[in-house]
C-alpha cells in the first residue's frame, strides 16, 4: 500500500516488475513476522519452564544409599515406571479367573458406583442443556434484547464455567453434604456455562432474515427466537450436547474424590490405603466406559448430522 504511493515511476513500470517488488516486500514482512513470533514464543516457553521447575536440580538417593544432585527430569521419569509397575496386578495364565476376581474384588460396589457415575453425568448434562440453552439466546450479541441483558447473561455463563467443577463440587458438598446430588449440581453448573457459551456462538452465526420475518408479522422477541432461531440451531445444539455428555462422564468419574458421588471416592480410598492394583482396576473400568460412551455418542452425532444432509 505504502509502496504504491512512493513513486510516480511505478505508475509507468511494467506490471510484472511492480509485482516482483511487491512480492519481495510481502516476503520480507512475512519473515520478520516469523522471526519476532518465534522469539516471543521461545522466551515465553523458557520462562514458563523455569517457573514450572523444569530446570530444577534436586537431591536424589542412589541405590547404594549415597545422595547426589541431579536434574529433576531424568531423575523423576524412572519413578513413573515404578508407580505404574506397582499398579499392575499379578496375573497368571493358570489361575487367570481367580486372579481377575482378585483384581476386581470389589466389582459389585464398583459396578453400582459406575451406574451412579453415568447417571450423575446424565443428570448434569440435562441441567447443563436447560441452563445453557435458555441463557444462550440473551448471551448472543445478535439476539440479546439489550446491552444489559447481554452483559448479565454472559457474566453468569462465565462464572458458571470458569469455576472448575471440582471446586463447585467442594462448595456443594459443603452445602448439601456428601453424595451424588452435589456432583450433579457441580457438573451441571459447569456444563451450563460451557454449553451456554458454545450455543451462543452458534446463535451468533444464524441467518437473521427468518427472525425479521417473524418480527414483521407481529411476533414478540420470544416468538422470533422460537420460530426464527431455534430451528436453525437445533442440529448444532444436539451435537454439542452429546459431546458434553462424553466430557461429563469423565468429570463425574473423578468428582467423587471430593465426596460428590460416583467412582471418584474409590480412587481416593485406594490412593490413601495404597491399594495400587485397585487403582488400575478402576482405571480400566473408567477407560472402557468412556470408550463405549464416546463411540455411542459419536455414532449418534453422525446420525444427527447425516439426517441434516438428507431432509
Amino acid at each position, binding site marked *: 500500500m505504502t509502496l504504491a504511493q512512493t513513486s510516480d515511476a511505478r505508475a509507468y513500470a511494467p506490471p510484472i516488475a511492480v509485482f516482483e517488488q511487491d512480492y519481495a516486500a510481502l516476503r520480507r514482512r512475512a519473515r520478520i513476522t516469523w522471526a519476532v513470533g518465534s522469539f516471543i514464543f521461545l522466551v515465553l516457553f523458557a520462562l514458563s519452564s523455569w517457573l514450572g521447575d523444569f530446570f530444577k536440580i534436586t537431591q536424589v538417593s542412589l541405590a547404594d544409599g549415597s545422595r547426589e544432585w541431579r536434574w529433576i527430569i531424568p531423575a523423576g521419569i524412572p519413578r513413573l515406571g515404578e508407580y505404574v509397575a506397582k499398579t499392575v496386578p499379578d496375573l497368571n495364565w493358570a489361575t487367570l479367573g481367580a486372579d481377575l476376581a482378585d483384581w476386581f474384588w470389589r466389582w459389585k460396589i464398583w459396578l453400582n458406583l459406575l451406574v451412579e457415575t453415568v447417571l450423575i453425568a446424565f443428570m448434569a448434562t440435562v441441567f447443563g442443556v436447560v441452563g445453557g440453552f435458555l441463557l444462550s439466546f440473551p448471551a448472543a450479541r445478535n439476539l440479546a434484547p439489550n446491552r444489559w441483558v447481554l452483559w448479565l447473561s454472559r457474566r453468569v455463563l462465565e462464572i458458571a464455567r470458569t469455576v472448575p467443577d471440582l471446586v463447585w463440587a467442594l462448595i456443594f458438598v459443603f452445602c448439601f453434604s456428601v453424595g451424588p446430588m452435589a456432583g450433579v449440581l457441580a457438573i451441571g453448573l459447569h456444563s451450563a456455562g460451557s454449553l451456554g457459551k458454545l450455543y451462543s456462538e452458534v446463535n451468533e452465526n444464524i441467518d*437473521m*432474515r*427468518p427472525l*425479521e*420475518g*417473524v*418480527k*414483521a*408479522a*407481529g*411476533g*414478540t422477541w*420470544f*416468538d422470533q427466537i*422460537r*420460530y*426464527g432461531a431455534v*430451528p*436453525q440451531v*437445533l442440529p448444532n445444539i444436539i451435537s454439542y450436547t452429546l459431546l458434553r455428555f462424553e466430557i461429563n462422564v469423565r468429570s463425574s468419574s473423578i468428582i467423587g474424590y471430593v465426596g460428590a458421588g460416583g467412582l471418584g471416592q474409590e480412587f481416593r480410598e485406594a490412593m490413601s490405603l495404597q491399594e495400587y492394583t485397585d487403582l488400575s482396576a478402576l482405571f480400566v473400568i473408567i477407560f472402557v466406559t468412556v470408550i463405549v460412551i464416546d463411540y455411542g455418542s459419536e455414532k449418534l452425532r453422525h446420525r444427527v448430522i447425516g439426517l441434516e444432509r438428507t*431432509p
Partner: protein
Amino acid sequence: MTSVLTLRSVSRHFGDTRAVDDVNLSIEAGQFVGVIGRSGAGKSTMLRLINRLIDPTTGSISFEGVEVTALKGRALRDWRRSCAMIFQQFNLVDRLDVLTNVLIGRLAEHGFLSSMTMRFSDAERTMAIEALDRLDLVPQALQRAGTLSGGQQQRVAIAKALVQNPKIMLADEPIASLDPANATLVMDGLRAINKDHGITVLVNLHTLDTARAYCDRIIAMRQGRVFFDGTAAQLTDDVVRDIYGTEGLREFNAAVTSTQTITGQPTTSISA
C-alpha cells in the same frame, strides 16, 4: 378517496446518510402503489419505517388516524400484523414446514405458552390452508420451506401475509430474486389480493415495466426524497432518466432497469 396511510416529513438518518429525507405521502385505501428508484434511493427504508422494523429519526406516520410511530408493545405488534410485509429474500424459516411458516402470520394473536409450544387452533390451520390454496401451494403444505423454489417461497410468504388479516400489504422487491414466470405469479397474486379484498398494496419495484403494468400509482424516490408521484402515463422517458440519474448512460432502455443485484442485508444496501 380517503387517505388511510399518511407520512408527514418522515426522515431516517444512518450516520450522515439520509436514507429517507423529508418524505410526505398519503396513500388511499385500496390503491396499488409502486415505489421505484435506484438502489439506495430509500425505498426499502421507507417500507421498513411504515412497518416499524426501524424507527424514523423525525416525522410522523399515521394509519386511519392512529399515530404509528407512537405505538409500543402489544399495540405495535398488532400494527405489524395489520401491515403485512413481504421481503425480497422471502424471510421464511427454511427448516420449518410450509404450514407452520404460514401460521407464523397468526403469532401476534397468541399468548406466550401456545406460541412457544407451536399450538395453533383448527380455525387457524383452516385459514392457513385456504390461503395456501389461493396460491396453489396445498400439495407443498407439509414440506420444509427451504426445499421450495424461490417463486414458491415467495407465494408462501404471501399466504403468511394473508393470514395476518392485513389492512395494508408492503412488499419490498418481492420479485427481484425470481425468474419472469414466477415474478408474474407473485405480482398477479398481489393484484388479486388488492382487487378481491381491497387491501392497500405498497410495493417496491425496480423493473419499470412491472410498475407500469400493475400499479395504479407510481412513486419514484431519489436520494431519500419523493421525486415523482403520479400515474404510469405521467411517467415519461425524461422523468425516468432523472429518477435513475443515468450518468454515463446515453441510451436508456426502460426494459433493462433491473440493474440491482441481490444485497444480503437490506439495511446495508443503504449507501450512496
